[in-house]
């Protein structure tokens, strides 16, 4: 019994010794922090519509509508055979460079260009049936230092450079 009590006492002393030798003090340092976060959507979707109604004289009234979400620069071109087509731009917002007609203003989302009137000169036109095919290209406006960059539309830049 005496040995048992001595073991009990030794165990208690050992427990106390372990507590005081293994539980060390902790050091705390002053610090502070603050978080913030934000996000913004990127709209790149481009949708355009070429409206090219044909009147009774087979002339085409071409406008381009920006039905997407971002500002665009646009150009159009008509394909046909022979020399029987005349372009008219009453509002003076289109300009011709080579085979392409460029709209000189940035076309904002929801806007349409002014009309580019493609008229068939009947006296020059051949007697066989013919068609005028209008194609359009558009590219999203990209800015650099507040200006539209050449990269915004490589085709536009190249054609301008060729025209110089």
């Amino acid at each position, binding site marked *: 019994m005496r040995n048992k009590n001595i073991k009990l006492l030794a165990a208690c002393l050992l427990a*106390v010794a372990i507590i005081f030798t293994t539980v060390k003090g902790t050091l705390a340092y*002053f610090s502070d922090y603050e*978080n*913030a976060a934000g996000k*913004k959507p990127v709209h*790149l979707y481009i949708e355009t519509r070429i409206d090219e109604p044909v009147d009774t004289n087979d002339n085409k009234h071409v406008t381009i509508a920006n039905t*997407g979400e971002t500002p665009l620069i646009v150009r159009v071109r008509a394909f046909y055979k022979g020399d029987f087509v005349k372009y008219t731009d009453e509002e003076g917002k289109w300009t011709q460079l080579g085979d392409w007609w460029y709209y000189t203003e940035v076309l904002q989302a929801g806007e349409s260009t002014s009309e580019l009137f493609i008229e068939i000169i009947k006296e020059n036109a051949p007697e066989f049936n013919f068609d005028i095919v209008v194609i359009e290209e558009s590219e999203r406006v990209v*800015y650099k230092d507040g200006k539209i960059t050449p*990269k915004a539309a490589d085709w536009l830049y190249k054609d301008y450079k060729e025209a110089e």
Partner: protein
Amino acid sequence: MKNNKTSLLLSIVAVLALIVMVMSGVQIINTRAALSPATAVYRGEIELGHLDVTMLENHKPVDGTLLNDLKDIDPGKEYKEEISVRNDSDVDEYVRLVIRKYWSDKSEKRVTLDPELIVLSYSGKDYNDNAWVENKAEATTERKVYYLRKILPGETESEDLFDTIMINDEIMDKYEITTTKEGNSTITRLVYEYDGYYINLEAEVQSIQQAEADSAAASVWGNTGVSIDTASKTVKVGE
């Protein structure tokens, strides 16, 4: 036998109590009451300093949100996004800023689009040329960590870490195009890979005390390879 056992247990308890008191530094001293003339009461106060760092966006304190002044963002166009910090306490502190930039979808789920196309710049200069220095050892494509080179004195504002944000126009290089005919109209659609996704910017400013700054940095910032020269009060990155 029973009395022996009880006395032994009492002895053990007494010994343990004595050990605890001694090791805890408790001293038992004699107390004595005596009449004595009252003396004036002197009181001393020690005020513990505290750190208080504030993040600034366009030199205004943020309320937890960033990109507050940004309405729309067009590719290739730089927008003002000035991020700096202010020490609002009266003691000097060392500061670092952790920046995260990434893309997410509408449901705020992160996507694997390229974070490098979200460009943060400081007037076109390299970060090493100004007040902040990047620790590239802590960098990933999404996460960048910048340290203020010098200690930030109390009640002062740091220089900007960066001042513009831009989306690289390379995001426009990937798209699919479709064309449909409807009567006298032709509809053309360009669907870009990055369309409809969100740019995300997160920032966390963390400051530490100037006393024992090296230990504080290791404790708070972790093992970053950053050391602090307490003599010159500057942060050394990768040296």
